[in-house]
């Protein structure tokens, strides 16, 4: 006789699986947004679990900014191959070429990927997009629903969200409208890592510490490579670093770390004193309401 108490990681897993199944049961054409980062990988892993032994019954979409770390693409392709899932690629460079969006002066493609995402979703008729966002990441996310309604421009209206009671999700939409679904809403960064460790989940090697050539820019450590070459007057140094988030290669900084295995990362994350985005993402530092503004425009 067991106590019939589910551990918190199993509770989170069960909740995510419930959400993913609910979307597939109720929506016409769902799609999972896959960035190659740890959260979208965990989400994909959960999707595979939700339908086993059948295959995942929806495609995944990668909004390719053209600024990917090579190991992220390799990891993406390994997952696609292993799960036999259909991959849709929405290309930002291609969208720049045909004039849908314009390169921003600061070189960030974070904002211009939104129109590319929205266009691809519309073209494919996706009425539900799974995203790996977590509520512990950021203030605006803390108030977003699991089933987050978007109007026919893909916009989020924080003041006009559907009430979400119990686990009775309402995905009903009119033609052109859609929902974003966040199955990992209640996971924290530490939960994600503890789960990755327990489930031995395959990640890009960027997440693991090794000696890399880096340059220190205002406390942020950028790897010296084709995306972030040394500027005049800068000197590179070799340090043991790893990535806590994997965004665009020209914007994502590494953190000093010696955590080279999943278990060591769990320990490190448990002790760490800076938020993920605060530590490593140049793109989120713009203003206090940066994320809220981007979400209103249709960003994740």
């Amino acid at each position, binding site marked *: 006789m067991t106590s*019939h*108490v*589910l*551990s*918190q*990681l*199993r*509770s989170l897993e*069960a*909740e995510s*699986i*419930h959400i993913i*199944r*609910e979307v597939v*049961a109720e929506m016409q054409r769902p799609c999972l947004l896959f960035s190659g980062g740890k959260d979208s990988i965990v989400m994909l*892993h959960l999707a*595979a679990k*939700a*339908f*086993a*032994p*059948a*295959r995942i019954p929806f495609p995944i979409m990668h909004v390719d900014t053209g600024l990917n770390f090579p190991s992220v693409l390799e990891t993406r392709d390994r997952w696609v191959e292993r799960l036999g899932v259909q991959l849709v690629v929405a290309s930002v460079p291609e969208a720049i070429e045909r004039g849908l969006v314009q390169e921003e002066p600061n070189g960030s493609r974070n904002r211009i990927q939104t129109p590319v995402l929205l266009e691809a979703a519309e073209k494919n008729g996706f009425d539900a997009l799974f995203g790996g966002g977590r*509520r*512990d990441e950021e*203030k*605006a996310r*803390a*108030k977003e629903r699991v089933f987050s309604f978007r109007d026919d421009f893909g916009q989020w209206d*924080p*003041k006009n*969200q*559907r*009430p*979400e*009671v*119990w*686990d*009775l999700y*309402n995905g*009903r*939409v009119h033609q052109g409208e859609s929902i974003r679904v966040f199955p990992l809403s209640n996971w*924290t960064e*530490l*939960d994600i890592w*503890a*789960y990755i460790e*327990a*489930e*031995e989940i*395959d990640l890009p090697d960027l997440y693991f510490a090794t000696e890399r050539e880096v340059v220190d820019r205002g406390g942020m450590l950028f790897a010296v490579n084709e995306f972030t070459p040394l500027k005049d007057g800068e000197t590179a140094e070799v340090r043991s670093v790893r990535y806590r988030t994997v965004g665009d290669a020209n914007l994502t900084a590494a953190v000093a770390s010696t955590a080279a295995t*999943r*278990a060591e990362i769990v320990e490190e994350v448990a002790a760490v*004193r*800076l*938020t993920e985005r*605060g530590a490593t993402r140049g793109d989120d530092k713009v203003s*206090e*309401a940066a994320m*809220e503004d981007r979400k209103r425009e249709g960003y994740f």
Partner: protein
Amino acid sequence: MSTETTTSTTTAAQQAIDTSADLLRFATAGSVDDGKSTLIGRLLFDSKTIFSDQLEAVEQVSKDRGNDYTDLALLTDGLRAEREQGITIDVAYRYFATPKRKFIIADTPGHIQYTRNMVTGASTADVALILVDARKGVIEQSRRHTFLATLLGVPHIVVCVNKMDLVDYSEEVFETIRKDFTEFASRLRVPDLTFIPISALVGDNVVHRSEQTPWFDGRPLLSHLETLHVASDRNLQDVRFPVQYVIRPQSHDARDYRGYAGTVAGGVLKPGDTVRVLPSGLETTIEAIDTADGPVAEAYPPMSVTVRLTDEIDISRGDMICRPNNSPAALQDIDAQICWMDESAPLVQGKKYAIKHTTRWARAMVKDVKYRVDVNTLHRDEDATEIRLNEIGRVQLRVTQPLFVDPYRQNRRTGAFILVDEATNKTVAAGMVGSLPHAS
């Protein structure tokens, strides 16, 4: 399921996933001035959940505003509109963990116009924290929050008598509030009621025991939340398994597989159990309970599993698996309490809505508005014919097809439903099934 090569040995991490701490969801409600945000900030801060960049930002803003204390309430500030207006608009979710438990806080605004947000937060909560300002005592808002928490079936209520530092940590003040509150609560169904004297601002009895309240023999808030027994709140007696999705792989190696995926809503399911499937009423046996990690010996709430049955019977989403001698009621006429959540139109007698109950959608007509409850005085207005935004009422619904329901008091999953406006697709009401007709 390990997505990499499977090995026969289990690592410590793999075991830890099943033995890790459990989860406790609690809801807080309150307005800006009763110290709710400060209390949450204090819990996050004293449990070392706050990151240093967040704390620095808050310290800077406090300094800029000329505050004497670091305003921990700023930690829970959300949207820009809220910062501009100095109010909380919506439910915000916060997370923290101690070695004993992971906590999910549904942080909801306290004003009456945000009743629907509080209902949202309370719907899944194990515990409701009610804040009472020690200087003001039990006020209308405390009563409203408590009423809503009990309406939503929150099994544990913790009353934090806050700002004890402003009443000289007076035992007498605390006892008066305890007495007033207990008297009021006796009119409601409160299975478990606890009182704690705190000061969120300076930290008395939040995480650490206060030396200012030697007369208080209870535990500080966090320690109370860590040890509260919530496992027995779930219904483990009545087997309820709403079928969510039918898994039928279209592949060579699993061609004959047919499994019914879902989340256990009540009871404990085991292979070999005789089960009845509604609405057909057919009986069969559980062949196996699958997960992606392999079969399990039993399934209980809130596990998400896939059930296989020995006989091939026609089962689809929205069907309910239960036990032959223990079924939910199959009802088309439903008596329920509802909280109305739509600002654009009230609930009116005779109108039709879409209804979602477990995994089943149907249509429902409001046959009768029996009464409307004043959430502040608990007074029932039996002449009411409509229920407006943030109001609670009792209604009689006629549904197009039978729903397999239990009274909400017996099961918070199979006793709950939502109403959806068919024109706007908005979720307009949260509903709780009341008493069932006799001998049906």
